[in-house]
């Protein structure tokens, strides 16, 4: 039959256009992204951090120093050729420790957001769409969590358990979902009055279909932007918890823990505090710049 062939032709033709359209969309996004040099810088910074964290064992001069290693004779060395950023109280290379420490901080962020974002988004969607009592209950619970600063809440939860980096993550995750819940709830509430949602209803789409196919994609870009900005905040909260002594356990150290230990030796042995602080600053700044840039890139373009 010839229809088959012609149909095939039609679709290949279409696929070409499809590719062109995708290219165009990417191009537009890239254009907006590029126009904002600050966000470009942010992207590079984040990529660099992630790269260094992943390949930490290969890019650090003393990978052994990240584990159980002590060399008390060599402790507290000021920055020098052999130890660019000096050594710490155990005699470990601070540069190596920073790279491995940021690895932990990044993991913390990934896990916290990996748990809390889906939960928050799901609850936000459900509450926003269902409305009524469901919404009241979910949003009031959210309010309860939001009425305490994240750090305080995490501190309370963390102190109740054995402190460790995974408990800290759990603690932060257990409150972080509320932000996404609130964000998505707001978006859902406004999106559900849009005519395309009503159109889907008229077409007989089930609530789940509407939630996941119509509403969720519209939450995606604010949520993605929020995630990048969150990443900075989670690192901050995590660093705060670590600073108060509830962070990673020795011999591993995240950046907050490093600062907390290093602060004990200020001001004489400043390098133990200053460099990890700069590292935190670098990461958070990277994420924030990136998030800010993405906000523009992911915004829906208004019509022609």
């Amino acid at each position, binding site marked *: 039959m010839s229809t088959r062939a012609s149909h095939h032709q039609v679709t290949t033709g279409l696929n070409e256009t499809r590719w062109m359209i995708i290219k165009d969309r990417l191009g537009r996004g890239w254009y907006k992204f590029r126009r904002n040099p600050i966000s470009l810088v942010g992207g590079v910074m984040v990529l660099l951090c992630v790269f260094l964290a992943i390949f930490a064992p290969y890019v650090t001069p003393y990978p052994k120093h990240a584990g159980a290693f002590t060399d008390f004779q060599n402790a507290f060395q000021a920055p020098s050729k052999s130890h660019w950023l000096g050594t710490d109280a155990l005699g470990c290379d601070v540069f190596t420790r920073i790279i491995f420490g940021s690895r932990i901080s990044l993991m913390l962020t990934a896990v916290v957001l990996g748990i809390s974002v889906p939960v928050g988004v799901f609850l936000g969607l459900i509450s926003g769409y269902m409305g009524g009592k469901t919404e009241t209950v979910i949003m009031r619970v959210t309010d309860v969590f939001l009425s305490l600063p994240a750090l305080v809440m995490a501190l309370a939860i963390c102190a109740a358990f054995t402190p460790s980096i995974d408990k800290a993550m759990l603690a932060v995750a257990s409150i972080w979902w509320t932000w996404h819940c609130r964000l998505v709830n707001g978006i859902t509430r406004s999106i559900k009055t*849009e*005519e395309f949602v009503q159109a889907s209803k008229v077409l007989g789409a089930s609530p789940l*279909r509407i939630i996941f196919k119509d509403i969720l994609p519209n939450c995606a870009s604010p949520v993605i932007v929020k995630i990048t900005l969150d990443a900075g905040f989670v690192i901050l909260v995590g660093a705060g918890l670590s600073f108060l002594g509830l962070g990673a356990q020795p011999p591993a150290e995240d950046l907050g823990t490093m600062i907390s230990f290093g602060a004990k030796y200020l001001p004489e042995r400043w390098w133990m505090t200053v460099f990890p602080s700069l590292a935190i600053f670098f990461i958070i700044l990277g994420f924030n710049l990136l998030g800010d840039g993405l906000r523009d890139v992911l915004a829906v373009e208004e019509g022609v």
Partner: protein
Amino acid sequence: MSEPVLKVENLVKYFPVRSGLLHKIVAHVKAVDKVSFDVQKGEIFGLIGESGSGKSTVAKTIVQIYNPTSGMIYFKGQNLSKLTKQTIGRFRREVQMVFQDPKSSLNPRRSVMSILEDPLIIHGIGKSRVERKRIIHTLLGQVEMPSRYMYKYPSALSGGERQRIAIARALAVNPSFLVLDEPTSALDVSVQAKLINLFLRLKKELALSYLFITHNLSLVRTIAARAGVMYLGKIYELGTMEMLFSHPVHPYTKTLIAATPVVSKEEERVKPREMSKEGEIPSPVNPPSGCAFHPRCSIAESRCSQELPSPVKVGPGHLVWCHRAEELAVRAEELVVLE
């Protein structure tokens, strides 16, 4: 007359207004208040009225986005309040709607393909993706759009194109009745003209019936066979185009026609003398008592503000809800005769 496709009887839709400390219902927006009309098979029935008169609410109640506060809607003889889980699917395939705002009627985050595929998936039309693609191809053809638009996103479409996609989406389930809620009001005249022609063509080709909602009198005159004139949730005049435009009876209808800007002398001749005073449209929360139009009506009497007018039949199929309908109808007749 044969059995109508759609029959609306005493339809009422109130929206609660909440307020106060406990968020209690303190009042109702009487968006639709006892509206009755019917639509014949193959007919275009128009619903006219100013903003906030309840036109969209009627439409959304018919397509079951809202549940009516009271009143009955029959589709092909079936009472819609009696729809069950099983029958609602069939109803959804029979009755579709096209919305007013081309900006918000398509999901900006989905491609045209995905938007058009949705109804097919929901109703199990087209077994495979390839088949669905073919159907979409046909649908786009029906609304006179090239197939390559399949992969575009709404942001890349003009208002007219978006409305075409919205129409294609409605047509995807192969309905017999379309509710068109001001589908062209946001568009330019030239685009509107093309769309109107498309509607007419589709109606003929697919044997559709329309409920056509608009505030543009010239447009309803051009396209519809019969129409109802709504004001603050109620229909005040209902009749065929001929009757409504050459013998308008209700002062409100006349006001509307008189206020319509026109582009030719012939049309100017059709315009009646204005029948209203300056004034704003009152709130549907507290509509004026009696005939809701009386504060703006230049010939209102004391009873107009007290009693609700009952329908008066002033011609074949021509109903007017006005206390002075009979005397006005006579004068209208005279006017026509005189000219």
